[in-house]
């Protein structure tokens, strides 16, 4: 009986109340802290860091087929296509590219290097329990790699109440997705679950009639079995994941009108097989003070064969991550976290970068081992002042020592006003061929500097959140500013020569300013409105000595969302309007007919998304539309009529490639409540 009570308390407190995240902190970011503002969906957490939580219910407001599509209703994060042929997408936080955001799954760094370009498509939407977006320096616990912030994805845990969920999706582009997951409890302590996914693009579409598919056809299969053991003093979790993906892009027989005998079609084929696995162990020696020692081990293997016309870039990447942590609290006021980590990365490239298929295959390998340690102290003075200071010291076998200090401060002036500030340093090892592989979807010469150095930057930020209640309605106003200053950056320069991509280490001035304001109103119990605006100023030296705007990066982003969920949420209607742009295009050249190869700038564009969901006890059905304003970038592929010529370039992308699209879907869930 006593044991039963303990287990109930443990499961109630740690499983239910932390969105499926058990203690200890070293294994999972705790999120069961006082929630300050934000009505439904996205909530800001009362942590020292500036962290927003996107819950599973927020994710049902849009189709959210995968992680990359989960930010359509979030003003902080942008997801853009990298090029018009491979479907590679990159996340942008604070106006800087995704490589400066540390992506994590279950607080373990993931999707680094070769998996970065397509990683956003590797986590299906229905697998996700929640997403945490931390802006600014972030914790030192998970390594030195976060520069603009961290994005952590928590997936459905087997220790949740036993359930079975099925999801089906179909859209106008003839793409279908199917997800199924379930979990069972095996006795009192053990639980097991499996998450599965299948998607297939049955046909290619070419709406702008340039002979190229607007989006590659993707067939992806993935599965993730996992187990958990929740004991009184010992907690264990392990999971494995396998993913097999086939991408077919470029020209296809159906859409090319004037096929010339002897001239092959330009095709892009990318085949990926990826393994991931992790095991987390924690021994809890002092339950009252969250005292625990944890060991986390994870590994991945990424095997990708890619061809872009006659250019080839095959990469095998393996990664091993291990971390040993100690944590304890004193009087609920002081918390100390300290640990050691060891990370090993192995890359093996086989490539041929010539556009005409000439020359032999080149071979390159790289190995990097980084050993490090950290100490992090958190002060929580009656929820009034929350401060966190941490330092890391790491040694890389390739780049030497790295010292990473980071500090965060939150001051809750009153229940309605909260101020936060942060400063910190971050580093990254450069892997240009892995991260910029999508640049091969062009005839640009790849000019990669031989001896690249590691990237390093400082990030500073400050923000305020203020809640007022005019006429009894909850109105939340927030503003924040972030500044990122690079002391060493890996530059992708498309301006120096419009027929080349220069990749080199750059020590000159390079920075990003991002200013964001947000207003959120709970107009009635059923209606929520949000308006947000962000201004970014990202500059570096691309041509000559003058600082110029980073190309293909929008200066402004506006987001307006309207959510209406009447009848206790049995119905749910969501409308999102986003404004993006304008911005600078890389320096064009003059074509033989005297015109510019592409415009020097692009203008702002507006996109509208809408979705209606009807929830039943076990079922939900939804219908929605994406990009209903039907804005598409005109002629996204430069030189599409001659992909084997020197002017072909599919990487001049700033906007959407697909026009208006309607989708339908269903979700089924049956849960046995314990």
């Amino acid at each position: 009986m006593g044991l039963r009570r303990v287990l109930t308390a443990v499961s109630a407190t740690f499983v239910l109340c932390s969105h499926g995240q058990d203690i200890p902190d070293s294994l999972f970011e705790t999120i069961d802290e006082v929630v300050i503002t934000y009505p439904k969906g996205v909530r800001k957490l009362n942590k020292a860091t500036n962290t927003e939580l996107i819950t599973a219910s927020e994710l049902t407001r849009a189709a959210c087929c995968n992680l990359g599509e989960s930010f359509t209703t979030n003003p902080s994060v942008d997801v853009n296509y990298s090029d018009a042929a491979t479907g590679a997408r990159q996340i942008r936080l604070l106006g800087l590219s995704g490589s400066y955001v540390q992506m994590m799954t279950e607080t373990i760094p993931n999707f680094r290097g070769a998996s970065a370009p397509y990683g956003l498509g590797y986590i299906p939407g229905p697998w996700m329990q929640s997403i945490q977006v931390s802006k600014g320096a972030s914790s030192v616990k998970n390594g030195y790699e976060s520069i603009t912030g961290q994005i952590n994805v928590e997936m459905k845990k087997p220790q949740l109440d036993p359930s079975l969920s099925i999801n089906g999706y179909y859209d106008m582009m003839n793409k279908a997705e199917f997800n199924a997951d379930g979990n069972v409890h095996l006795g009192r302590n053990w639980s097991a679950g499996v998450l599965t996914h299948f998607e297939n693009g049955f046909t290619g579409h070419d709406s702008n009639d340039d002979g190229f598919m607007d989006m590659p056809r993707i067939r992806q299969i993935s599965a993730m079995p996992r187990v958990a053991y929740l004991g009184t003093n010992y907690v264990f979790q392990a999971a494995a994941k396998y993913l097999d993906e086939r991408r077919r892009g470029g020209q296809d027989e159906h859409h090319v009108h004037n096929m010339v005998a002897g001239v092959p079609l330009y095709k892009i084929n990318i085949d990926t097989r990826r393994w991931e696995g992790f095991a987390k162990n924690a021994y809890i020696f002092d339950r009252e003070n969250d005292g625990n020692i944890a060991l986390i081990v994870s590994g991945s293997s990424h095997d990708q064969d890619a061809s872009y016309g006659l250019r080839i870039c095959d990469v095998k990447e393996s990664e091993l991550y291990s971390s040993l942590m100690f944590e304890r609290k004193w009087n609920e006021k002081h918390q100390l976290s300290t640990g050691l980590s060891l990370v090993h990365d192995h890359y093996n490239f086989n490539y041929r970068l010539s556009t005409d298929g000439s020359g032999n295959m080149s071979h390159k390998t790289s190995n990097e081992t980084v050993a490090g340690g950290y100490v992090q102290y958190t002060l929580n003075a009656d929820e009034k002042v929350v401060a966190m200071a941490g330092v890391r010291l790491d040694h890389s076998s390739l780049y030497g020592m790295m010292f990473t200090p980071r500090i965060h401060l939150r001051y809750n002036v009153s229940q309605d006003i909260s101020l936060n500030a942060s400063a910190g340093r971050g580093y990254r090892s450069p892997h240009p061929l892995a991260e910029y592989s999508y640049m091969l979807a062009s005839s640009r010469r790849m000019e990669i500097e031989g001896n690249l150095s590691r990237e390093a930057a400082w990030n500073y930020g400050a923000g305020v959140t203020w809640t007022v209640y005019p006429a009894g309605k909850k109105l939340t106003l927030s503003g924040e500013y972030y500044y990122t200053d690079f002391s060493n950056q890996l530059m992708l320069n498309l301006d120096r020569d419009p027929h080349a991509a220069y990749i080199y280490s750059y020590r000159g001035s390079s920075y990003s300013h991002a200013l964001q304001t947000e207003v959120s109103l709970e107009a009635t119990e059923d209606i929520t409105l949000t308006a947000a605006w962000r201004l970014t100023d990202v500059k570096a030296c691309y041509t000559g000595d003058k600082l110029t705007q980073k190309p293909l990066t929008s200066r402004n982003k506006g987001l307006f969302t309207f959510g209406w969920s009447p009848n206790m949420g049995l119905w749910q209607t969501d409308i999102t309007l986003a404004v993006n742009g304008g911005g600078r295009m890389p320096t064009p050249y003059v074509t033989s007919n005297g015109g510019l190869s592409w415009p020097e700038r692009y203008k702002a564009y507006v996109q509208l998304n809408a979705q209606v969901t009807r929830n039943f006890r076990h079922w939900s059905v939804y219908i929605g539309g994406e990009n209903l304003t039907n804005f598409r970038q005109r002629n996204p592929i430069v030189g599409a009529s001659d992909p084997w010529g020197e002017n072909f370039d599919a990487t001049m992308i700033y906007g959407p490639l697909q026009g208006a699209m309607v989708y339908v879907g269903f979700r089924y869930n049956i849960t046995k409540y314990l």
Partner: protein
Amino acid sequence: MKKLIFIMLLAMLPVAAMSAPAGKDDSSKTVVFTVSPKMHCNNCENKIKNNIRYEKGVSRIATDLKKQTVTVTYDSEKTNTDNLSKAFKKIGYTAKECKADVPAEKNKTAK
């Protein structure tokens, strides 16, 4: 293609409009429950809300973490407090009708 999209969009509007809550009638009643085990966080609140909302006759649910109460507005011609208690049981909660002082304003806002 554009036509199709507009038709789809137009189709969404009446669907959404139909979902407006129906007006209350005289059979509308409000009951305040205390539940055990206790509600600890938003997740517990959501678990209750997301399940009890499908009970026949229920038109509104409000949870209060501080007071540990769940206020349910229902149509007394369609259901009763016993049925509601049973619904709580199905999701692992014991719901007791709160006989303690219920502030009058609470009842008011629950309508």
